[in-house]
């Protein structure tokens, strides 16, 4: 590879039994033992979310009920999931990957793509992948598999081929030999239902799909049908997009009250504070929203969420508070409240927002627009802090 490599170099990094691995980092007594993470281990109906390779050797599988897993593996240790812990380790993991390239796209909590084209052009070798894998294990205690390929699809397929702790290179020209014999269900992006449909067309392996007419596939399944065919042939143009996971869809804030509260005025005050926080965060992210959602958790833990969509985008804490207040008024049962939350749903970047002006009151917006234009001229010229809204500064 190295200098002669003409295409892209994509890594797919996949943590092996991530939750179980994290648990072992925090509790070394679990090392080398069969371990399952399950919904609620006290409940017999809990379901296995993931399990260590030791447990898998006994036949424990994801989505298996705990009682069944225990039957297969009597020594099984069952732990409840702790997502805060997993998120923390996940962010450490992505930070480590970012030391190698800026182009890291998190796909989920435990896997991501890296575009390593540039480092490779500058002389990196496959040894780099080994380095990453060893560091993940040594520094974070996370076994990982890495797939290396000229595109995302092949990289993803490759990382699945050697688990745990494997590095697999899959070139486009290897597709016929390594990919095509695999059953169609194993193709990334094809679920059971799609697989069943494809089988009716006599497509049983990835090779069958690769050789099938892309035109017919597109006619039957739309554009994605054609994409499947391309991918089965080792073609995938998707770029590694570090921002893909960052697209914000909602901005919200919630707070657990100091004591269970049933005084409407105290609840209103809380809504005001929450709305202010949401306004601040939306401003920072440069987004706006039409829909405000209110979350109420009562003292019996029963939780309701109710939302309201406004005709025009909401920018200020005051506007959001008004919506939240109406929602509280309409939906609060009057019982003591333990937690309140205000969330702006379906947010969009401010530059995509619009407001239908009112024939009777457009002058207000006209003035406001002039003012905000003047402010942005001033800040462009003299910097952010030259001017700010009144009332914030006290003499």
């Amino acid at each position, binding site marked *: 590879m190295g200098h002669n490599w003409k295409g892209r170099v994509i890594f797919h990094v996949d943590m092996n039994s991530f939750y179980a691995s994290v648990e072992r980092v925090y509790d070394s007594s679990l090392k080398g033992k069969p371990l399952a993470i399950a919904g609620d281990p006290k409940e017999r109906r809990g379901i296995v979310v993931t399990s260590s390779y030791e447990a898998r050797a006994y036949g424990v599988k994801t989505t298996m009920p705990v009682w069944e897993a225990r039957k297969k593996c009597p020594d099984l240790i069952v732990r409840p999931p702790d997502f805060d812990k997993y998120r923390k380790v996940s962010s450490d993991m992505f930070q480590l990957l970012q030391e190698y390239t800026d182009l890291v796209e998190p796909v989920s909590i435990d896997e991501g793509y890296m575009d390593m084209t540039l480092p490779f052009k500058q002389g990196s070798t496959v040894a780099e992948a080994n380095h990453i894998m060893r560091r993940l294990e040594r520094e974070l205690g996370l076994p990982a598999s890495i797939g290396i390929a000229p595109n995302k699809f092949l990289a993803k397929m490759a990382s699945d081929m050697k688990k745990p702790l494997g590095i697999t290179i899959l070139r486009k020209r290897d597709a016929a030999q390594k990919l095509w014999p695999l059953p169609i269900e194993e193709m990334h992006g094809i679920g059971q239902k799609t697989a069943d449909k494809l089988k009716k067309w006599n497509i049983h392996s990835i090779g069958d799909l690769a050789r099938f007419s892309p035109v017919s596939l597109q006619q039957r399944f739309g554009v994605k049908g054609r994409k499947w065919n391309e991918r089965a042939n080792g073609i995938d143009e998707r770029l590694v997009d570090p921002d893909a996971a960052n697209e914000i869809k909602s901005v919200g804030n919630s707070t657990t009250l100091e004591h269970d509260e049933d005084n409407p005025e105290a609840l209103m005050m809380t809504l005001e504070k929450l709305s202010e926080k949401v306004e601040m965060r939306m401003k920072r992210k440069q987004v*706006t929203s039409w829909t405000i959602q209110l979350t109420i958790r009562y003292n019996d833990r029963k939780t309701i969420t109710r939302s309201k969509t406004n005709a025009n*985008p909401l920018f200020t804490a005051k506007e959001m508070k008004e919506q939240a207040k109406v929602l509280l008024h309409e939906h609060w049962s009057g019982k003591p409240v333990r937690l309140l939350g205000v969330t702006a749903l379906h947010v*969009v970047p*401010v*530059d*995509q*927002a*619009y*407001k*239908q*002006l*009112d*024939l*009777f009151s*457009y*002058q207000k*917006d*006209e003035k406001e*627009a002039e003012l905000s234009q003047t402010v942005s001229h001033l800040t462009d010229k003299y910097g952010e802090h030259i001017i700010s809204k009144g009332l914030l500064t006290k003499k």
Partner: protein
Amino acid sequence: MHFIIQRDKFVQSVQHVNKAVSSRTTIPILTGIKLEVTSDGVTLTGSDSDISIESFIPAADEEKEYVEVKKEGSIVLQARFFADIVKKLPGDDIEVMVQDQFATTLRSGSVVFNLNGLDPEEYPQLPKLDESRTFRLPQNLLKDMIRQTVFAVSNQETRPVLTGVNMEIENGILTCTATDSHRLAMRKAITESTTENLTISNVVIPGKSLNELSKILDDTDDLVDIVVTGSQILFQFKHLLFFSRLLDGKYPVTKNMIPEQAKTQIELPTKELLHSLERALLLSKEAKNNVINLKTLEGDVLEVTSISSEVGKVTEKIHCHQVEGEELRISFNGKNIMDALKVIDSEMVHIMFTGAMSPFILRPTDHDQMLHLFSPVRTY
């Protein structure tokens, strides 16, 4: 009560009054149609208490006999069944006969329906209106005025008075105005009044009433007498009365909302703008906001664009007959403009802009009887 009536005449009348009948009324008797027979003829009435329609079929006119009255009387019949039955009866004549306990027999050809009627005494009396404020309009003109304004009424109950069309008469000019506070449609016409120097204002007719009335109006020059009182309006035809409740509340003053100073003016064929907006809206429909951007370019060219972040973008250049004044970039709800263009019968329209953040006016070029006003959309 007992009479024999010509079927076609009867069916038409029943269908007219049935327009006022609502199945969702809180007053049970109003689910029925009232029939009243005298030696002069048959009177039918339907009402949902907002709209009431009374239709009269004379026993005979100069040409023909329509009704053979055997016994005077009255009855109320369930509109749901009665209206469908008379439409489907096979003969040229229908015989209607009420026996005791409101049991009613409908007979036509060899078909007999026996219906249970309701007590006509329970049916509310239609108001007797003071006719001191009356004016007249040809049917086809009234129909046009409704079509050209009623689409702009608000369909939201937050400001009920905006769900109606406001009528005003001053110096012999009738003005109809409708607005949902985002767009406004106005239509004027010269009217004849039987009252000297008739002035009326703040007569707000529910949009729903006008839509029903429009279905009854024919494309003829025959005059309609329009009687206005404080709470009711009556449209009086030769053999039909159409009553509507008026909306309470003060209609906003709209005269001073119409800008006079233009910053940018354009003139172009109605159809071209309409089709261009239709194409542009193909994309913004997806975003459900109908936002269209308009930009003036060199050489009397207008650029229409619409962007949907998920679907894509459309750009179209329109050659106008004239573009005058300042350069302009403005965004607006394209659907509202389309609604207005669809009711403009003239070939060319004139648009007067007063800035990107203030209302603009759309008018046909060949007369000044019609005006549409729109507020733009603010982008950030």
